[in-house]
């Protein structure tokens, strides 16, 4: 918060979005997403090798790419993750339909990730300036 205010004083509102606290938030979120992404991607490949669902490997790859874009503070992070999230919802309903408890592991965490990305939206910029 303090950082944000200082940054705002130094460079004005537009620059503040990319720097200081927002930058820190983007880095932290990027790390979290990358950790989840690596686990999902690695485990997902293992599961595919065992003849299981392809979802986790693909979702892991999507999450890793999103993590990279968040780190670069690119708006494309949101666009990419929206695709991942929509495909996740489609897959989840295809696999278990309206079974509430079966949807908990499929939809809750991916939706939390979406909310987190939306929360750091001010840190993201449309394209390279």
């Amino acid at each position, binding site marked *: 918060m303090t950082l944000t205010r200082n940054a705002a004083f130094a460079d004005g509102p537009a620059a503040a979005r990319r720097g200081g606290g927002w930058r820190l938030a983007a880095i932290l979120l990027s790390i979290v997403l990358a950790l989840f992404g690596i686990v*999902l991607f690695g485990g997902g490949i293992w599961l595919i090798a065992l003849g299981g669902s392809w979802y*986790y490997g693909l979702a892991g790859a999507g999450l890793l790419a999103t993590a990279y874009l968040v780190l670069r503070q690119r708006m494309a992070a949101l666009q990419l993750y929206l695709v991942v999230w929509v495909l996740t919802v489609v897959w989840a309903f295809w696999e278990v339909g309206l079974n509430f408890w079966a949807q908990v592991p499929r939809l809750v965490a991916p939706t939390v990730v979406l909310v987190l990305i939306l929360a750091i939206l001010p840190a993201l910029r449309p394209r390279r300036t």
Partner: protein
Amino acid sequence: MTNTLRVSLLAAMAAALTTSAFAQEPAVKHAAPQPEVGADWPFYGGDENATRYSPLSQITPENVGKLERAFVLHTGDMPSPNARYSPETTPLKVGRSLIMCSAKNVLISADATNGKENWRYDPGVPDAAIPHAAACRGVATYTAPELAEDAACKTRVIEATLDARLIAVDLKTGQPCQDFGTVGQVDLWNGIGKRVPGWYAVTAPPTVVRGVVVTGAQVKDGQDEDAPSGVMRGFNAVTGELAWAWDMGNPANKHGPAEGETYTRGTPNNWAAGVADEKLGLVYIPTGNSSIDYYGSNRKDYEAKYSTSLVALDAATGDVAWHFQTIRHDVWDYDLGSQGTLIDFPGPDGKPVPAIVLPTKQGDIYILDRATGKPLHGIGEAKGHKKGSVEPDFIADTQPTSLWHTLRKEPLEESDMWGFTPIDQMMCRIQFRSANYEGYLTPPSADKPWIQYPGYNGGSDWGSVAIDPVNGILIANYNDIPNLNQLIERPVAEKMGVRPIYAPKTDAAPKSTGGEGGASVYPQINAPYAIKVNSGWRNWGTGVPCSAPPYGGIRAVDMKTGKTLWDEPLGTARRNGPFGIPSYLPFTIGLPNNGGSVVTAGGLIFIGAATDNLFRAINIKTGEVLWQDVLPNGGQANPITYEVDGQQYVLMAASGHAFMETGRGDELVAYRLPK
């Protein structure tokens, strides 16, 4: 059907009464009139038929919402810090008193209106005698016709203890019965062999039939092929003298083994409650498996014959009248845990015959002719899978199923795997794909884990079923949980330091060692493999189950057709969450449950059982939960209902359960409508 049931019940009662009215000889030979359920709850299973049905109707779906606590009774039997307790207490109610045993077998009589203690008798069971956990599910009473009305122990309370004693005390005073055994006690270790505390322990109420007290014992699972015998014994209910022993391995032991000998070791045991058939003079004993559970090639013929069976024993002689086996060559620990329920059921010609309802852990519910043991409905066949088995020649080609009703669900699929996040769900999917699984009856394997579904907790376990004989409705609560198990090669087990229960206490190595995801390892000495059991298939690290909810439910079945009337998940998510953190979510999820239900003429089902620690009343017509109360600890027991001074009470033990992880306490909570 409804009327047929009713009429035949009345006929049976009339027949029993007539027989006894003319009987002047000792009760060991003839049927005696039995106390009736209603104001009293005279048997562990409610009435002599173990229907868990009460004719009381003061509490109804309309007024059950007004139920309030009448009193909370404390047994005073609290676990010492390292002791595991699963009291599972179900009292009797006789006259104005509740009669019960605490977890470590303290007998207590208390005023049924306020819980105030009348007397207690503490047999002084040591902690060392505790098997998996300290439990005493119930007691029996016996009124001796040959004793004078005012004689001491005219009516006696009989229990069997964790340290394998049969104990009789006076119902009125709690004083040991001097005429019974040695100062009110009989030592059940006689003829069993070396005393290893905790290996041979009784947790079920004894069954009294025609003046004979019948008991088996729990034999702690997975220790050694050379384990205490599963012998069934009948004792004179007045003198405590051995009336007979049924030793399936050696009929010569009928009156006890010779000096220095033991009953045949390692035979299938009986830890579940039996039920007496006073009229036919039989006692129906649900057996478990021979020691050990998960390997069978070295079992004897008589073990294979009687394991996991309902055995009808003659009360006078202990001879086998018939037996019905529910699993051939059991290598899944599908021992019979439920008490049978006696009903009348249409025979082959449509006329009602005396029958027994037998629930199983596999989920199949059988209905058998009590005179012959023949099923009164079609028997199906399930394929026995051999892939992955370490003993494919031993695995039975087929297993019986009940075509009347089964609680068992469809086999698991990868998409049934669960977790709280995609990550733990993925971990479970990896385990699913890495395990041997051919569906129901996947055999034990050593190369990799195998999925056992249903797991050893049922289907139906010791909570048994309740049957409303008037409306012809069976109520079954059940578990719906897989286990993930693996046989462990002997050298690996040695390295893990898994030791049997009789290993020296000073040894630093654990007796049975914990494993990943809450798994337990049992040594199975003298078998080629030890066994690792992950009960409930809990995930690595989080402890969250790998299979999706519901984990348990409650179901109403039409007795006439065997069809499901309704089926609901049992239990809310309030106490559950990752890493054991309660979520306080009020949503119904369907939880693991142990303990059973009571059904009443008022149209209600009362049940705790689930791991959410709630006690609830359910509309028997719809399955809707109409009322609930948060218990101090888990209600893993069978509730009872009774009446005093025109007021109906419902009572539920709420002392928690070690295996179900629902706390440690000593409470029983009673409810009634406001006066």
